[in-house]
């Protein structure tokens, strides 16, 4: 796996043990969107994240993802993290980034790619992605990155709720 996370540091590095890493209790109940057109991959990742206590909304194509991203910008949906494959039917997962950029307090975006060349990583960073992870990846590596980014996203959601007029 090759992963880039601009300005971030993993707080819980993957253990060499083959035992399942225990999920942190502070992520339980956080909502994540997972966009991946490979049904098997999507379900596996969703299973792993649901076992950690996340609420996972699954979408299978770029158009459905764009609708969800628009709902996030319109404050109709609160999520702590958006995880998306880059190459999907309809629109690329990258298309969600400019939509979210319309909001000043968008959730972090973690991109999954099978084409993790340096240019893709650079483009992702330029468009504001919080991280990129290349397939194939170890599920525990993905989980630790997700925990970290979801905590950042939770802070954004909490700040937004504080700012809302009563």
């Amino acid at each position, binding site marked *: 796996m090759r992963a880039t996370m601009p300005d971030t540091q993993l707080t819980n590095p993957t253990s060499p043990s083959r035992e*399942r890493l225990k999920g942190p209790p502070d992520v339980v109940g956080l909502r994540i969107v997972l966009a991946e057109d490979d*049904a*098997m*991959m999507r*379900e*596996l990742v969703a*299973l*792993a994240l649901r076992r950690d206590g996340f609420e996972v909304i699954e979408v299978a194509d770029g158009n459905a993802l764009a609708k969800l991203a628009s709902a996030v910008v319109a404050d109709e949906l609160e999520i702590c993290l958006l995880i998306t494959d880059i190459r999907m039917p309809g629109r690329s997962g990258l298309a969600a980034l400019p939509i979210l950029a319309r909001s000043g307090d968008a959730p972090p975006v973690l991109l999954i790619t099978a084409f993790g060349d340096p240019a893709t990583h650079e483009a992702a960073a330029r468009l504001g992605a919080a991280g990129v992870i290349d397939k194939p990846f*170890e599920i525990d590596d993905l989980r630790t990155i997700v925990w970290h980014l979801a905590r950042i996203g939770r802070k954004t959601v909490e700040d937004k709720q504080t700012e809302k007029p009563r």
Partner: protein
Amino acid sequence: MSADIGPLRGRRVLLAEDDVEFRRLLARTFHAHGYEVIETGTGVDFLEVFADALFRNADLDAICDLIVTDVRMPGLSGLTILHGLRNAGCATPAIVVTAFGDDTTRAAAHSLGATLIDKPFELEALCELADRLAVS
């Protein structure tokens, strides 16, 4: 049913079928035939049985000796999961049961090294096929 289970003793079959009544019937039949049965009712439950082994790159063939799966199930189809398992290196013998045994489905099952059986079928024929595959 045959009482002499011989080499099948301790064999484990994963059964993925969303029709509860039909699944229970198949499970009872396999039990009577000496199999331990892992029952799953959706594609996601089927996948979850293999999830830990997939996550850890562990031996996928150690989960069970035979997979018997329906094609159409809530969540993920049996063929989709079988395709993913084969890509991940799983060589466990598989039987695909379907009421929609068209040529495309048959070809897909064949390409995954699985044997397709059309519903309705004789339980004894399924068990005979299972016995052949599970000891191979």
